[in-house]
């Protein structure tokens, strides 16, 4: 059911649910669920003992107006963080943030969501909305969305209006570059030792921007901060593109070489994730392409890999 609700009314309902956060970038969406820096344990050292407390800083929020791809990225993060053992920090954030997704009508040059089987009009998140003349056409998708407002009070969008959404969807989908990478996952294993990885990583400077900006990359580090008699333990974002990421104290590093790290990044997304969860760990948002200082383009990389696996 898609309801027609005045913009102000709709926003009031959302405000009642939690603090509205309007963000555009995937990096900020990820930051809401998996903060860049998250203190989770605070300790105080006494003479013969230590006191430790679990630390939480969780607030009810509504993340508003994000495109469907970023809602999809949250679903992909769920696979990792909600599987056993449950990541309780992530889970609590997930439960306290309502996700309101807006139909994406302005895709940019880097987008390729449709190549991954997604659509800029995917019904994702808790509520899906489409804006029209001072109204939202809104569709509740989860149980908690149903509790946000008395949906029955509002009238359904008309057939014409519904058609308009569909037409717009088709129009936007056509604007997005689409290529075929279905079934690439299994074939990637066969090129694990290929020279293609050197070719692909040739220009990479290991800055990690691609992974930080990726809404689905979630690697983190755990660090302690020590003050005189107290301190805390926190998790902070990390990147598999850094060589110290896998550096062992003995000096051994399984991914000391650049191409090994690029390979892991791409294979994690396009070969390993599918083994565990049957989905690519990429939503096709193109952010990594946009931010790379050396012009690494994951779309080109995937197409190159497709050529190589079929050779």
């Amino acid at each position, binding site marked *: 059911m898609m309801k027609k609700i005045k913009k102000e009314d709709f926003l009031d309902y959302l405000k009642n649910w939690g603090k509205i956060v309007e963000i555009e970038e995937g990096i900020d969406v990820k930051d809401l669920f998996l903060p860049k820096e998250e203190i989770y344990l605070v300790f105080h050292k006494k003479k013969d003992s230590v006191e*430790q407390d679990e630390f939480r800083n969780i607030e009810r929020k509504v993340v508003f107006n994000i495109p469907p791809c970023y809602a999809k990225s949250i679903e992909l993060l769920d696979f990792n963080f909600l599987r056993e053992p449950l*990541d309780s*920090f992530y889970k609590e954030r997930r439960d306290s943030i309502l996700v309101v997704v807006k139909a994406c009508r302005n895709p940019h040059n880097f987008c390729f969501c449709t190549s991954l089987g997604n659509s800029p009009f995917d019904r994702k998140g808790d509520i899906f909305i489409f804006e029209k003349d001072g109204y939202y056409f809104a569709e509740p998708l989860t149980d908690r969305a149903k509790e946000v407002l008395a949906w029955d009070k509002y009238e359904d969008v008309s057939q014409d209006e519904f058609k308009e959404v569909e037409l717009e969807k088709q129009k936007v989908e056509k604007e997005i570059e689409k290529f075929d990478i279905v079934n690439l996952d299994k074939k990637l294993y066969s090129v694990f030792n290929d020279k293609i990885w050197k070719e692909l990583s040739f220009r990479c400077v290991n800055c990690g921007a691609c992974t930080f900006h990726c809404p689905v990359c979630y690697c983190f580090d755990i660090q*302690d*901060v020590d003050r005189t008699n107290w301190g805390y*333990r926190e998790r902070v974002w990390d990147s598999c593109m850094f060589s110290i990421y*896998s*550096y062992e104290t003995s000096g051994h590093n399984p991914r000391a070489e650049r191409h090994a790290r690029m390979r892991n990044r791409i294979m994690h997304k396009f070969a390993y994730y599918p083994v565990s969860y049957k989905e690519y760990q990429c939503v096709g948002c193109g952010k990594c392409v946009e931010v790379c200082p050396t012009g690494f383009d994951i779309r080109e990389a995937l197409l190159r890999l497709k050529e190589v696996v079929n050779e």
Partner: protein
Amino acid sequence: MNNNPYMPFKARLVGTKFESEDRSLKTFEFEIIDDEIKYLPGQFCEVGIYGKGEAPFGIATSPTEGKRLKFTINKAGLVTSFLHESNKGAIFGIRGPLGNYYPVEQFKGHNVLIVGGGFAFTTLRSLLIYLLDHREEYKNIEVIYGAREPGLLMYRDELFEWEKREDLNIHLTVDKEFPGWSGNVGFVPQVLERVAPSSKDTYAVVCGPPVMIKFTLPVLKTLDFKSDRVYTSLEKRMKCGIGKCGRCNIGHVYICKDGPVFSLQELEHLPPDI
């Protein structure tokens, strides 16, 4: 385990003992305060020093020895150096048990061959004591354990006790002749070749430095050990220890969560990213 897998149990250091003559290896004995960690041989814990960080270590005790946990730790970097300087009574945060364990259930009714080298003998000690404490459930137990020199063999008092036992064959070896050493001389793979244990009804567990593993596996192969009968324990840099932080993967597998114990057969299906 706690409800929150990131929160450690508080543990008190109740004893320490140098394990090697060069003092690089030390065994630490912990008591979990008001709680208990239930584990099986092969599992590990993240041992944390409040303010310094956590690091993963295999549990060297067997659950059959009681509630206290021992770890034998090589002084290597930040956390391990602080540990080496810690005194009895100090409080630590321990998370665990983490990872899987040697398939001791599957081993029942079979012979078990344990091949170890250097300071990787920690969880092998756990396994061996566990097997000995359930001695009637297993057939022959054969152990080959080597170190560079006699002073680097760990748990020496116990090793010499085990040598006296009738229900266990243990072969200790050092890399080269050493004054006062009357045992085997030679690398672990060579001793394995000489001992040539039968692969019939036998499971093998191999842990040690990469070069030892590299030369041991072909010997096992000539002895006709099948890859689903040979187990090893892997190490990678770790942080979370619960398969979340992404760090320790080989292919889609996380060493911390899906391992650290794997059969060679399982490893054959993973990309060579070690």
